[in-house]
Structure formats: C-alpha cells, structure tokens
C-alpha cells in the first residue's frame, strides 16, 4: 500500500496552510476528505439534485435510488443483517440521543441502571443524564485502570441486578484504548442487558462486523470516516428499531395522518423524519468505496505501525507524558508536557503546520479522573506517515525550547 498515492487523493494536502505543508494529526476530531467524496457532492448538486422519497419525477426517483444505495453499502460494510437496520442521522451525537430518548420513552424505568465508562465522550453521557433527570435512572461508571483501559472484569464488577443497559465507546478518543466490545456484549446479553456502542472512533479504524459484535446499537460519525459533515449512522437491531417509538415527528416518517390518529412509517423511514442530508448520504457511498479500495486490514496495519512509532518517539522525549498505555490501542496519542499548557502546545505546533487538538476532547470525566484540566492529542488517519510523527516530535522540541525546558 502506497501512502503517498493515498495522500494524493486528498486535495487538502496540496494546499499550503500558513505557508506550511499540512501535518494533519486531528483525524479523531474529523478526517480530511478524499477528492471522490468532494466531487460527488458537487456532481449531485450540479447534475442530479432532487429531494428523495417524495416525488415521482425522474430526478426524484434517481436520487432516492442513490440514497438507498448508500444504505446498502453501509449495511454491507458493517455486515448488518438487514438494510433496514441502517438509519441515517445528523451525526453520532444524534444517533446516541435517538437511542437514549426512545429507550427512555418505552423501555427504561425509574430506578434502572445504565452503565457507561469514564472514557465516554460527552455525547455518550449527556443523553443518559437527560434520563437521569427525567426518569430517575441511575448512571454508573466503569473505571479505567492505570493503562487507561476498560477491562471486561471491571464491567462485570459494575453490573448490578438493576443494570439494564451498557453504553460504551469502541475506541477511546483520548487514551486510544480499544474495548473488548464482543466479550462485553456476550456478558451483557447473558444477563439480559442491552449494549450500545459509540463507534465514532471504531468505525474509521477497525473492522466492523455487527453480526459478530452482536451489540444492539452502534453509532457512527461519517465525518470521521472520510465522509461529509452533518451525517451519522445509527445501526440498531431490527427487533429494537421495530419495537421502539419514533424519535422525531414530521414528514417522511408517517404512514397515515388523520385529525384523530397518526400511524408511523416502516423502517427505516420511521427514524428519518424531514428532509435528510441527501447529498451527504449519497457522497458517503464514496467514502465507503474509498475505504474498501484500501482494505480495512491495510488501514489497521498502517495505523498500528504509526501509533507504535509515535508512541516510541514520544516516550523517548523527556518531559512528554503520554496518557494511557493500553495494550490494544488505536491511532490516538494524547499527552501533556510538564510546564506547558496544552493550548500553548497546540498554538506553537500550529505555527509549524502541525494540526493537533488541545482541550478535554469532550471527555471531562476522564480528565477529572486523570487530574488534568486538558491534554494535547495527536491522532492519525490513513494519510499520515512516519514523517508526520517526526515533525510532531520536532515541533514538540521547539515548544520545549520556547518554554525553556
């Protein structure tokens, strides 16, 4: 696999960013877009645009078919059993809110317990907090170990007879820990507990097989998967999506509307109220094709090499402290430098064209646990090279110099 070739497919790397070549190490936040995806959006709007699922004219039918093609592509990509288990949302955040809201309406009862982890992104905590407020459910937290991992044993320890649902990230956007989702699901199901997975970081970087993972729900963020913004995917087992009530009401999600009664549409329309992110959905098909053309095994191998290389570099760099050291680690390197605030690090690195993120990365619970207000995070994607990580290290050294370290 030639990374140089792959990188050429991303037009942004032809740009000078403040006179620098771009060293983009912020893919956990959002990935860059290959030309095929950008072009597809343009092509759809210029040559094929129509709203989907409404009219019977030629363009509307063609657009609807394109839209549904992406659903089928996603189904195959994540090996879901049924096309109707794929619901488009505005993002992973909306997918998680949809799950919490509908389970809250019809499944979770006062006093029930939801088990999440200290690694969770706010979008996999706040929606459950809403239910804590409105339905008096209880939220428990599985705790990280010293390596920044969540183990199966820890999950087992935190399950109580009242645990009704476990909602966990597939891959931590801070420590990079990959959670044993399959094993956790097996354990949970043996106790009649539902499993929700925040797959934002898993989907772009890991092999996905819903039937093998067997989780009940899986949330995907398309903009982190070389796809457009404003789009997410909710995978849900058919029996759940059929059983649960709708989330939003409006056009497209109904069957029959009368003054005294309303019946709802079938899956997946039931969960796709209103005009959807049509162009994004249609372009996302290209993201999947792009990933398929590289092969997820190759993606995983490349990124694992990068992380190992980056980890070694940063471990050798004194005054840099890596956050977490999980055995099973995805492409995320979060760190602090003693004596330099992460925001100062990010500003100084930015001057060299090195784009990283600084802050709490929407994981305040985790940062509180680690007793730090913020951290710096470099995260990789398919277009990154070892040279990018060398540049990261060099810019970190420059930062240390400025701060007289």
């Amino acid at each position, binding site marked *: 696999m030639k990374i140089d070739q792959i990188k050429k497919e991303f037009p942004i790397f032809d740009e000078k960013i403040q006179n620098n070549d771009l060293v983009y190490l912020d893919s956990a936040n959002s990935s860059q877009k290959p030309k095929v995806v950008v072009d597809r959006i343009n092509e759809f709007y210029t040559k094929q645009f129509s709203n989907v699922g409404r009219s019977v004219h030629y363009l509307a039918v063609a657009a609807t078919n394109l839209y549904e093609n992406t659903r089928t592509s996603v189904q195959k990509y994540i090996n879901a059993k049924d096309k109707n288990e794929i619901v488009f949302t505005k993002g992973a955040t909306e997918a998680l809110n949809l799950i919490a809201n509908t389970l809250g309406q019809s499944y979770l009862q006062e006093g029930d317990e939801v088990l999440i982890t200290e690694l969770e992104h706010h979008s996999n905590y706040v929606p459950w907090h809403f239910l804590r407020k409105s339905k008096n459910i209880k939220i428990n937290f599985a705790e990280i170990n010293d390596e920044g991992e969540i183990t199966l044993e820890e999950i087992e320890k935190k399950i109580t007879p009242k645990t009704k649902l476990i909602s966990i990230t597939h891959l931590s956007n801070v420590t990079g820990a990959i959670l044993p989702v399959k094993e956790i699901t097996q354990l949970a199901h043996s106790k009649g507990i539902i499993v929700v997975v925040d797959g934002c970081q898993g989907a772009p970087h890991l092999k996905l097989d819903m039937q093998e993972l067997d989780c009940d729900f899986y949330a995907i963020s398309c903009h982190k998967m070389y796809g457009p913004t404003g789009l997410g995917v909710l995978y849900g087992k058919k029996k759940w999506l059929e059983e649960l009530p709708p989330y939003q009401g409006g056009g497209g999600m109904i069957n029959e509307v009368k003054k005294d009664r309303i019946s709802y549409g079938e899956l997946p329309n039931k969960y796709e109220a209103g005009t959807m992110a049509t162009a994004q959905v249609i372009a996302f098909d290209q993201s999947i094709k792009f990933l398929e053309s590289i092969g997820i095994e190759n993606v995983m191998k490349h990124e694992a090499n990068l992380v190992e290389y980056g980890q070694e570099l940063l471990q050798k760099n004194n005054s840099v402290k890596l956050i977490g050291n999980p055995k099973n680690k995805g492409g995320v390197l979060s760190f602090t430098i003693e004596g330099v*605030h*992460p*925001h*100062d690090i990010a*500003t100084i690195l930015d001057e060299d064209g090195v784009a990283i993120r600084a*802050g*709490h990365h929407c994981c305040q619970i985790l940062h509180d646990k680690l007793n730090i*207000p913020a951290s710096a995070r470099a995260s990789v994607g398919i277009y990154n090279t070892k040279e990018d990580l060398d540049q990261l290290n060099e810019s970190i050294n420059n930062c240390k110099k*400025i*701060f007289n370290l």
Partner: protein
Amino acid sequence: MNLKELYQEIILEHGKNPRNLRKTEGFNKDAKGNNPLCGDNVHVYLKLNGQKIVEDASFEGSGCAISMASASIMTDLIKGKNEHEAKEIVEDFLGMIKENPELKSKYLSEDEKTKLMCLSGVKQYPMRVKCATLSWHTMVSAFEENTEEVKTEN
C-alpha cells in the same frame, strides 16, 4: 508576527510565575470565570477601600501561559485604581486585543502599556483571544457583583 513575539520573556515569566496568585484576605468583591473549551478557570478577588480604590487584587486558577500571564499583569496594574478607572482600562485592553493598534487610556502608565502590549500577539490567534480576556471579564463581573460564572466567548 511570529511565535517568539507571542511567547516573549514577559509572558513566559508571568505565565510560569504569576503575580498575585493567591486569595486576598478580607476581599470584598470576587467572581469566577471559566473557559469551558480549554479548561482555563480563574477566580478573581478584589479588596476595595472606603474610597472605592482597589487596595489589593489577586486570583486563583489554572490555565495556559496566556491566561495566567494576563491575569497576573492585570491584577498587578489594577491596584491603586478606582472602579471607574479599572473599567476604562478593561475596555481599553479588550479593544486592543480585538482590533485597536494601541492602548489609549490615560489611567495607564507607559510601563503598564508596554506590559499589556505583550499580549497583543494573541490577535493573530483568534482561538486564544479568550484565554487573554477571561480574567478581565471576570474582574468586571466582580466589580458588578455578578454571581454567575463568566463564560468566555471570544
């Protein structure tokens, strides 16, 4: 503008060893500020005497070099000023950080202006402007006895 100009001696010096990083004993005005995006937080304390003159100013909190240096310089130069003067200085500072090329307030000495101008480099870094302004907004809030925490939006 380059980084060296932003992270000058004086910013590093104040950022690493902030002045007045403590809680004023017998303070009579205080307010909290927080920059949720970055995790910077600051608690400003003021002690005004009978003539409404700032006898002492201090702060507690944590944050980046820019926010710490800004709070440090601010608490230093606000001592001895009255509320009216302090507020004019805040206006002047915020104006400078956003757009004005220089400081104009007659209540600032040349030396104080020079110190404050060290922070002017953040203009080039829009995301960092709120780091520099957090403690200033918080001080205004203390004067006005707002109990709500200040949240910076640029």
